[in-house]
Structures are given as structure tokens and as C-alpha cells.
């Protein structure tokens, strides 16, 4: 049987780095093939070459045994290759059907397109209403729009880049059912993920990349997650551990926090209240777009409100701007690294000044910058958090997402916060770096700081949290001790029926059960 796609000796070099070095692998028809690797291992470059976004320097590809060298994504799509990106490219102010139409070469009339969307989405178990505004959809539903857009092109090979990073366990289950259905129909899937359990449950074959080279090809079902991780990282993984210690005084008290949404499609926080004590990690779960960004900016001081809504060590701080809160010891790291936590075109030294100038004393009297001290601080972060960069002078945008994330988290941690609030601390970060970041968060709590981790990754939250709460449509559930929480309880806290296409509780129960089976 000929391979659907075969890649031989693909090499792509960028100035200063070889992204892909003599990469070869192949995918059979109807195979779900995993592409595994740390950040910067070259996965993105590889799939971009298959999708025609990047041209390889040397090497060749074959599709159905015929030479395949797409000069641009359009010809890759014409040949039957479709891709669902990690970041969606959708217009929030347009409807589902309009968004799908915009991505097509020759879109049919809107009425016919809506019919097709409804048919395809139901056939694959991804119900979508073509008339709804994308701005009103959850992240999971938005991903469905992207998938349906691809499916309408009747692809032979579907590339999915980190598709589950924004999904609830229930949504993951639905996605996997769809992918298996596609597979049964003979469509091949190239699946990129860091989540090893997921890959073991779903994929038939795996190619593991490390520093641009293929280090192994294997059947993920025959290897344990730990083995896969070791192949990926090249060393044994450290699992964060911490004995739950004594918790101290209340550090952060939030009461009656209600925010106006910042932009049209933002989420309004609804009377949020919780406490965090010194030495404790509070995990806040929930699907993206349920108020995470708004909560973080209310705690960081980017949006301010009445003084009493946020108290730090009993002192009302709800009205204080970010720098006043930093002086007190309240630090934060937002989710969006490039353009929010860091300025893309500024160097790492400048980005170290961005949030660190007060506590690290990077200015002298009169506000003059101490560049030498700033450079040492940046270098300290780079060394302590294993940020892979040619140096501190490099612009933030030149770093891979995972490395920049390590820098951003490290910048806040090294400032010895009394309270650290992080949103999606390990989003898009490779397994070993994610483990290091989680360990650092736990160490910080052990050292007596209060930590709030906002994340969509439930495994991560279960690993680090002492107590767990869930955000749903701007409401925060009452925090519960994380130890002993069952998946079912978590599912209910996440607001089970929110955005799910399950009407009755029995069905929800069933889905949660299937999830638990897949994830012991």
C-alpha cells in the first residue's frame, strides 16, 4: 500500500538555527500520526512545509506517490491537505457561515454553504449553527468552525496543531470521536500535541523530533507516556512533588468582584469571591473565554475597581494600578506572552525592566535606568529558567513561545512575590519545561507565597493545586480541596452543560465516564 504522504530528507535552516535537519517520515492512508517534540523541536516548521507555508531548503515530499512541493497553502489545499491551526483565524463579528466562506477559494452561496455546514458538522458529531456569531462561541466551538472549514474541502490529510489545548475533557472526547470517524473513512491525520496520554489513546504511529532531527518513530500505544517523554526530552522527566505544607495567613481576599467587560466579546466577571493563603496554590480551571483574562487583569491591576473588592493582606488594593500592587508584592503573568506579558520588538533586557524595574531596583533615583543591573537580571532569568536564546539582547519575538513563557514566568518568580497570579503558565510549553515551571510554582508556594494558577489544563491543575475552583461564564465556583476531587465533580464545577451539546445529565455522565476511562 502506498503511503499517503512521505517525507524524505527535509531540511530547513533559518539564520542561526536548523529547524529541520534531514527529517523523514511517512503516513499511511487512514492513519492518525502523531508529531511529538519539545518547543523549538521543529514540529511547526515541518507541518508548515507540508502545508506550503514554508519551502524546504532540500529534501522532497510525495503525496500518493507523486512529487509534492506546494508553493503556497492554496495548492496544498487543492492537493487535499488541510490544516487546523493552534490559533484560530476567525472574525468574531461574522457568523460561522461567513467565516467558513471567507476561507474558501470558491464559496457557494451563503444558503447552500449553511446547509453544507449543517450537514457536515452533524455527520461528524460537531454540531454548529451556521448563523451564530463567532464572537459568541466558546473556544471548542470555534475550533469546530475551523475543522468544518477543513472538512468541507474533503481533505485526504488533516493537520491538527495542538487541538486539545483549549478544550474541556468532554470536548476532547467529542473531538476524538470525530477524528476516529474521519480515520475510518480513510482520511489521514497528522496530529501535533504535547499531551502524551492523548497521543497514546488516539494515534497509530508517532514521529518524535528533538532539535530538528527525528530521534524515533514508534507506535505510541506500545510505549508508556514516560518513555515517549524521555524520547522527546532526551532525559528522564521530573514530576513535580510537594508535601502539602502548613498554610499561613490569608494573603489575597477577593469579594464581590464584578467587572464590566473590556471589549465587546469579553466576559463579565460576576460577583467573584475567594481567598488564598500563604503557602497555598489555588487552581482555577475553566474553558478559555469564561473570564480568565478579565480575572487576571482585575488582580494584576490592569483594570481597577472599588478598593474593597481585592484585598492584599487585609489592605484594600482594588483601586491600585499594577505598579502599586507590584510594590506590595502582588505579581502576575498574563496568558498572552507576545504583546501582553512581553513587548515583541523589545530585547529581553528591556522586557526584564517591563515588570521588574521596581522590585529589582533597575532604576536609580530620578527614574534613570540601570542598564547593567537590568542586563544581569535578564541573564539571571535566562540561566535560572533555562531560556534558550543567543543572549539577553535578542528581541522577545525571536524566541519560541515556550522559551518566552519560561522567561516571563521566571521574571515574576525571581522577584520573590508574596502573591503570584499566572494564567496558562505552561500553555504551548514542552513537557520538560512545563514540569520545571510547575515545580517552580510549587517551590514558590512552599517558600510561603500564595499562588493562583489559572489554567485550562486540568491535569496541570490537579498536579499543582491545593484547592480548585472553576470559572464558568464569569462565575467562580466555591473552591474545594483538590485532593480527592473526581473527574465528575470537576466536570460539574466546570459547568458541565455549558456549551455542550448534551441536554440530559445522563449523557453528560456518560461522557465524563468515558473520559475517565481514557485517563485513569
Amino acid at each position, binding site marked *: 500500500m502506498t503511503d499517503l504522504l512521505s517525507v524524505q530528507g527535509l531540511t530547513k535552516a533559518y539564520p542561526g538555527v536548523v529547524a529541520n535537519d534531514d527529517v523523514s517520515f511517512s503516513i499511511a492512508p487512514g492513519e492518525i500520526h502523531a508529531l511529538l517534540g519539545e518547543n523549538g523541536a521543529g514540529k511547526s516548521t515541518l507541518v508548515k512545509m507540508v502545508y506550503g507555508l514554508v519551502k524546504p531548503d532540500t529534501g522532497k515530499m510525495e503525496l500518493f506517490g507523486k512529487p509534492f512541493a506546494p508553493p503556497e497553502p492554496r495548492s496544498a489545499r487543492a492537493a487535499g491537505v488541510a490544516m487546523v491551526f493552534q490559533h484560530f483565524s476567525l472574525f468574531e463579528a461574522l457568523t460561522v457561515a461567513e467565516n467558513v466562506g471567507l476561507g474558501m477559494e470558491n464559496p457557494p452561496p451563503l444558503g447552500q454553504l449553511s446547509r453544507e455546514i449543517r450537514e457536515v458538522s452533524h455527520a461528524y458529531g460537531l454540531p454548529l449553527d451556521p448563523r451564530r456569531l463567532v464572537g459568541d462561541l466558546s473556544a471548542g466551538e470555534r475550533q469546530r468552525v475551523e475543522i468544518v472549514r477543513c472538512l468541507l474541502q474533503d481533505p485526504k490529510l488533516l493537520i491538527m496543531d495542538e487541538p486539545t489545548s483549549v478544550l474541556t475533557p468532554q470536548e476532547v472526547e467529542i473531538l476524538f470521536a470525530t477524528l476516529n470517524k474521519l480515520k475510518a473513512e480513510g482520511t489521514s491525520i497528522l496530529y501535533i500535541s504535547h499531551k502524551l496520554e492523548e497521543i497514546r489513546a488516539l494515534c497509530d504511529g508517532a514521529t518524535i523530533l528533538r532539535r530538528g532531527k527525528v530521534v524515533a518513530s514508534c507506535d505510541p500505544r506500545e510505549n508508556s507516556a514516560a518513555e515517549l517523554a524521555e524520547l522527546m526530552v532526551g532525559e528522564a522527566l521530573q514530576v513535580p512533588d510537594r508535601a502539602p505544607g502548613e498554610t499561613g495567613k490569608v494573603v489575597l481576599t477577593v469579594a464581590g468582584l464584578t467587572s464590566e467587560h473590556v471589549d465587546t466579546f469579553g466576559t463579565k466577571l460576576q460577583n467573584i469571591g475567594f481567598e488564598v493563603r500563604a503557602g497555598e496554590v489555588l487552581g482555577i480551571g475553566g474553558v478559555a473565554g469564561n473570564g480568565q483574562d478579565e480575572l487576571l487583569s482585575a488582580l494584576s491591576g490592569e483594570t481597577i475597581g472599588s478598593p474593597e473588592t481585592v484585598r492584599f493582606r487585609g489592605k484594600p488594593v482594588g483601586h491600585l494600578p499594577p505598579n502599586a500592587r507590584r510594590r506590595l508584592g502582588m505579581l502576575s503573568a498574563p496568558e498572552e506572552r507576545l504583546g501582553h506579558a512581553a513587548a515583541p520588538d*523589545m530585547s529581553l533586557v528591556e522586557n526584564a525592566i517591563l515588570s521588574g524595574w521596581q522590585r529589582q531596583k533597575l532604576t536609580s533615583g530620578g527614574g*534613570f535606568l540601570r542598564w547593567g543591573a537590568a542586563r544581569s537580571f535578564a541573564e539571571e532569568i535566562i540561566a535560572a529558567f533555562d531560556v534558550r536564546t543567543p543572549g539577553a539582547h535578542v528581541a522577545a519575538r525571536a524566541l519560541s513561545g515556550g522559551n518566552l513563557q519560561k522567561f516571563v514566568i521566571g521574571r515574576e518568580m525571581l522577584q520573590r512575590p508574596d502573591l503570584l497570579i499566572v494564567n496558562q503558565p505552561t500553555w504551548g510549553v514542552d513537557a520538560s519545561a512545563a514540569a520545571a515551571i510547575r515545580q517552580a510554582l510549587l517551590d514558590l508556594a512552599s517558600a510561603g507565597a500564595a499562588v493562583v494558577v489559572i489554567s485550562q489544563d486540568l491535569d496541570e491543575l490537579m498536579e499543582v493545586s491545593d484547592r480548585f475552583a472553576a470559572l464558568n461564564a464569569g462565575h467562580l465556583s466555591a473552591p474545594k480541596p483538590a485532593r480527592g476531587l473526581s473527574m465528575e465533580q470537576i466536570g460539574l464545577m466546570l459547568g458541565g452543560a455549558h456549551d455542550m451539546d448534551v441536554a440530559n445529565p445522563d449523557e453528560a455522565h456518560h461522557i465524563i465516564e468515558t473520559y475517565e476511562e481514557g485517563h485513569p
Partner: protein
Amino acid sequence: MIRLEKRPTPSRAWTYATPVLAVALTMLAGGLMFAALGKNPFLAIKTIFYDPILGEFAFYYRGQLLVKAGPLILIAVGLAMGFKAGIWNIGAEGQYIMGAIFGAAVGLAFYPAEHWYIFPLMVIAGAIGGLLWAMIPALLKVKFNTNEILVSLLLVYVAEQLLAAMALGALRNPDATGFPGSRNLQQYPAASNPEIWAGTGIHMGVVAALIAVIFAYILLSRHLMGFHIQLAGQSPKAARFGGVNPTALVVFCMGLSGALAGLAGMFEVTGPAGQIAISFNSGYGFTAIIVAFLGRLHPIGILLAGLLMALTYIGGEAAQATLQIPAAAIQAFQGMLLFFLLGVDVLSNYRIRLVKEGVA
């Protein structure tokens, strides 16, 4: 096939090399244009770029060079601070006029007294005049989120009407039997801004421009305020995270650029211009926008760009007079300079790669 590849970090070498390349390309394309007009291109280029500095009558032109470059640089330095922060003060011309009116009015109020403190008071008044005029768009933006581009620009025309009203009304020379225009401040020593060294063109405004360049350089490269200005311009969301107060930044940048434009107007009315007249303003406030961008919004760049811009004006006038090159051709020539500068700018952020077709 030629392809542009984005550089991971902007090229430092090209940032410095592109202005030189742009001037060279302007000379080439401008020379072709002059040749097409039947003029000797080499002579024309020499008349524009060489004669004002080193030619036979350079002793006259050199002074003119600084007289023209001074206000351009002073205004452009202030504007660049705002532009770097993403705050677009397009109304420097109006602030320039208001600075001149305020400065002249304070001086004329003392006429004919002779005190050492009159001129310093006029300097302060000039800065305040420009600052207040810039505060109108700044406060409207802060309070009502109006667009500062439109408000500051339209206020230029209001300022021009005020200027005419002053020249015809309150500030009109009472001894001039009905002619519009104020008393000539050059003939009022306590309120005048003469050349510091005769024949050099250096007056207090030129000195102020140089001080502004140094001040801006230190602000941008050494001070937290300069860091926040650049942060806000490059990444507004990161700036909010970094605790930059957008309101304070708008007020600071508009205020600074307004005050510097006001100073430029004040030094002009007390020096080279001499009096408040209906036709006092000559577009320095608008040309300074070009100078700011020509100089890459960098203080040292602005210093050089201001001198270059002044050179093309003076050399251009000389070429019109001696070679009978039409004024429109000179303007086209100046336009080419800006065009090439912005055009080759792409080289600092992108590299050009020659790619053979069909490489897989």
C-alpha cells in the same frame, strides 16, 4: 524571483545604512529628472548639496542652514517623543504660532522697558503657549477619546486665524499707521533673539534645539519615562501590564511636543522673523513631521535629518535661482528623498533573498 524574509531582529547595520542609501538613490533619480528637464544633473546636484556648504557663497547659506534647521529640529524632537508612543500630534504648526503669540505678547507688554528678565519670561511664555494649545487635543483625547490627529490639525487653522487677529488687532504696532503686524522685536533689545555669533545663523533657538536633542536622547535611552514611551508605542497592552498610565503619557507627550513647538515659534518671532505678522508661519510645524520620520524618530537622526531638510530647501532655492530649475521639480526632488527613505526602510526589518523558481 525576489523574496522578502522578515528578520528575527531588525538589522542594526541597515538602520544606519538606509538613510545614506536613500540620499544616494535620490541623487540618482533626481539627476535623471533634472537631465530630462534639460539641465546638467551634476551641476544641479552640486548646487543643491555642495554649494550651500562649501561653495562660493557658502558664508551666506551656512547661516541660513542653521536658521532653518533650528526650528525644524526643535519641533521634530518633541513630535518624535509622541510618535514613538503612538500619540500623533499633527498640529505643531498651531502650537508654533501660539508660542510665538504668547512670547511676543509678553515682550510687547514690557515695551519699551529694558530688564534682563524680559527675554527669559518670553521663553517661558512661548513654551506655555504651545503647551496650552497642545493640551486641547490632549485633554479631549483623555476625557472623550477624541482623535488627537484631527483635533490638533484643525487647531492649526484656528491658530492661524488668531495670528491674523493679533497682527491686525491686539498686537499691532501702534506706531505703524495701520499696517498689520506687531512692532519689530529685533529693534527691541530686551525682547530680541539675535545671532549669538554674527553670520553663523546661531541664535538661542538653535542652541535650544541642540539641548532638546541631548535631552531627548537621554530621556529615550536612559530614563524610565523614555522606556515607557517606547513601550506604549510598540505594544499598548504590554504597556498597560507594565503599569504605564496612558492618560499621563498622552498629557506628557502632547505637552512636551507642544512646549517645544511653542519655543520654536517664540525664538523665530524674536529672531529671524522679528514680528507677529499674518504670514508669520511658514510650515515648519508640518515639515518637522517629515524631519521626525526622516530621522527615524531618533534624536541624533532628527538632528541630521533637520540639517539635510534645511539643505534641500536652501540648495533648492539656489538651484531655482541660478539654474532656473522649476520650483515643482525641486519639490519633486524633496519628495523623492522621503519616498526613498521610507522605501529602503524595509531593508532594516527584512532581508532580500533571490530565490530560484521550482526549488522544492
